[in-house]
C-alpha cells in the first residue's frame, strides 16, 4: 500500500475475496453478515503487523547451521542461566506474591487501593527504570544494599542472584494480579465454612483456598515465568552482562546481533519456541473465549 489512492480498491477487492461466494460455507458463516470495511481492513493490518515479524524470523533462520548454533557452549550457557533465573524468580514471586495477592483480595485495610497501585506499577514501569531503582535500593550504596553488604556481606548487583531479583521485580506483578483476580472470583464462603469447622484463617487458606485457586496460581506463575525469561532492561541495568553469570538469553540475543546476526536469529528462535510452548500450555485458560 504505497499510494493512498489505490489502497481502498485493493482492500475492497481483498474483502470481496474474503467475503466469498455462497459456496464457501465456512467463510460465509464468519464474515458473510457484512463485516464493515473500516473495521475489517485495520483488523487484517493489525494481524499482519503482529504475525509478519515472526514469519520473517522463521524465513531468515539459517536452518542448515542451526544445530551448530544451538549446541555452541555460549548458547547453552545463556539458555541454562535464563531458565534457572526465570524459575528462581518465579519461585520468589510465588512465595511472596501469593500472600500479597491474598492480602489484597481478602483483607480490607486503609490504603488498599494505593497498595494495589504500587504492586501494579512495575507492570507499566520501563524495566530500565526498575533496574535503576533496584540499584538505588539494593546496590552496594543503596539504602538497603549498604546494610546487606556491611552486615551479611551480601552483594546483589552484577551477580546471578541479582538477575533473579531484577526478574522477580518485573515479573511478580503479573503473578499477583492474576492470583488476586482468581481469589476475587473464588467464593469466599468456602473460607467461612472452614472457619465454622474450626480452621484458623491460615489453615483455611492453606487447606481450602490454596487448592481451590491452584489453577489461577499456575497460570500466574507461567505468565510470570515467561515475563522473567524475556526480561532485559532491569536485568542489564541491575545485574550487568557477564557471560555465564548474568548474561541471560535476551542479553545474549542483543549482543549477538552486533557481531553474529545468525546466532542472534538462532537464539531468538529458541525464545520463540519457548513462548509458543507457554502459550500452548495456557490455551485452555486464555485462548478460549468465555
Amino acid at each position, binding site marked *: 500500500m504505497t499510494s493512498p489512492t489505490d489502497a481502498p480498491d485493493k482492500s475492497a477487492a481483498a474483502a470481496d475475496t474474503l467475503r466469498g461466494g455462497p459456496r464457501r460455507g465456512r467463510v460465509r458463516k464468519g464474515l458473510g453478515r457484512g463485516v464493515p470495511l473500516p473495521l475489517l481492513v485495520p483488523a487484517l493490518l493489525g494481524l499482519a503487523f503482529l504475525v509478519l515479524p515472526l514469519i520473517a524470523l522463521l524465513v531468515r533462520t539459517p536452518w542448515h547451521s542451526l544445530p551448530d548454533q544451538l549446541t555452541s557452549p555460549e548458547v547453552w550457557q545463556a539458555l541454562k542461566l535464563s531458565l534457572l533465573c526465570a524459575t528462581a524468580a518465579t519461585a520468589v514471586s510465588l512465595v511472596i506474591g501469593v500472600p500479597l495477592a491474598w492480602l489484597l483480595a481478602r483483607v480490607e485495610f486503609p490504603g488498599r487501593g494505593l497498595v494495589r497501585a504500587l504492586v501494579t506499577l512495575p507492570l507499566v514501569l520501563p524495566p530500565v527504570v526498575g533496574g535503576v531503582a533496584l540499584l538505588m535500593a539494593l546496590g552496594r550504596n543503596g539504602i538497603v544494599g549498604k546494610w546487606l553488604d556491611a552486615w551479611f556481606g551480601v552483594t546483589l548487583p552484577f551477580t546471578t542472584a541479582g538477575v533473579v531479583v531484577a526478574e522477580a521485580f518485573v515479573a511478580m506483578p503479573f503473578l499477583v494480579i492474576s492470583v488476586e483476580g482468581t481469589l476475587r472470583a473464588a467464593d469466599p464462603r468456602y473460607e467461612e465454612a472452614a472457619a465454622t*469447622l474450626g480452621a484458623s484463617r491460615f*489453615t483455611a487458606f492453606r487447606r481450602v483456598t490454596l487448592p*481451590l485457586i491452584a489453577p489461577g496460581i499456575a497460570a500466574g506463575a507461567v505468565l510470570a515465568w515467561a515475563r522473567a525469561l524475556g526480561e532485559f532492561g532491569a536485568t542489564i541495568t541491575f545485574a550487568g552482562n557477564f557471560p555465564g553469570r548474568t548474561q541471560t538469553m535476551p542479553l545474549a540475543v542483543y549482543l549477538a546481533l552486533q557481531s553474529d546476526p545468525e546466532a542472534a536469529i538462532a537464539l531468538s528462535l529458541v525464545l520463540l519456541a519457548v513462548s509458543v510452548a507457554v502459550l500452548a500450555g495456557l490455551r485452555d485458560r486464555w485462548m478460549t473465549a468465555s
Partner: protein
Amino acid sequence: MTHTEKTRKTEKAEKALKAEQSAYGATGVPGPAPAGLDAHLVVDRGSFRLDVALTAAPGDVVALLGPNGAGKTTALRALAGLTPLTDGRLRLDGAALERTAPESRPVGVVFQDYLLFPHLTALDNVAFGPRCHGATKAEARARAAEWLERMGLADHAGAKPRRLSGGQAQRIALARALATNPRLLLLDEPLAALDARTRLEVRTQLRRHLAEFEAVAVLVTHDPLDAMVLADRLVVIEDGHIVQEGTPADIARHPRTDYIAHLVGLNLYKGRAEGHTVQVDDGPAITTTEDLTGPVFVAFPPSAVTLYRDRPTGSSARNLWQCEVAGLETHGDQIRADLTGELPLAADLTTVAAAELDLHPGATVWATVKAAQTNAYPA
C-alpha cells in the same frame, strides 16, 4: 487448669474453655449459667436493623421462619460469628461468645448450598473439622468414617462432592457440621437446594438426625412445611424483628400477621370483638362462635369459603359478602380465587365448581363463611 481469667487473648485459652464446655455437655454436669442458647442479636446494616432475641434449651430445634430479606440468614451468620454483632449478647452454655472468632465457637453450620470443599473427598470433608480441632489425620478420618456410617453414606467416602446427589451432599454437610461436636447447630435453608422428591426423603432423615442431636439446633427457612416438620418451636421474623413465636400448631392456628396467615393458608383479619361479632378494622363484621371482647384476630381457611354467582337466599351463613374476582390460580387440584371487595379473601373451590360459576377475573360473586369455621383469638 484454671479458666477464671477469661481474657480470651490466646487461642490456647479459647481451646481450654471450649474443652471445658464440651466436657460439661458430655457429662451433663451443669455449668454455672443455664445450658443452651441465650442470645439477643442486634446487627445494624445501613437501613436494615436486625433485633432478635433467641433462647433455646439443649435438645431444642428452633426454626427461624420469614420472608426473603427478613434477616433470618443474618441472624444465623451472627450466631456463627461470620457477621459481627452491633449490639446485644450471645451466650452458649453460659459462655459469652460475642467477641469469639467463628473458628473458636462451638458452632456447626450447614450452609444453604452446603459449601462442601470441592477438592476433598466426602470423608475428608467430614474429617476437616476434627482435624482443625487437633485430631491426628487417622483419628479424624476414623471419626469421619463413623459419621458417614451413621448417615448411611459409607459407600461414598471416596467420592468428590460433584459426584454426590443433592440429598447425599446435604447429609455430608450435616455430618461435617456435627463431626466437631458443636453445642449449637445452624442450618441455613437446609432443604432449599433439593428437588421436590429428594426433599421429602431428606426432610424425614433430617428430622431424625435433629431429634438425636442433644444440643441446640437453629434452622432458617422460608418454607413453613420444613419449619413445622423439623422444629419444635417457630420464630417468625419479618423486617428484622420477631413478629410471632410458638409451637408450629399454635402458629398455624393463630397467625398474627398476614405473612404467616398466607404461609399457613388462612384468611386473617384484625378487629374488635363484641361477643360473637367481630368488627374488622376497615371492613365488615364477622360472626364467630367464640365469645370475646376487645382486639382479636379472626382466621378461617380458604376452603371454608363458599361462592355463589347470585346472592344466596336460603343460606344459613351469617357471613355474606359481595366480592370481585381479582385473580385465579391452580393450587394442587383446587382453584384458589383471590377476591377483593368489602372483605378481601382467598377461597378454594374445585375446578368443576369454578367452571359452573363461570369465574373469571372481574366477575362478581357472593362469598359466605359459616361461623363455626372461623377461629377468633385475642390479639
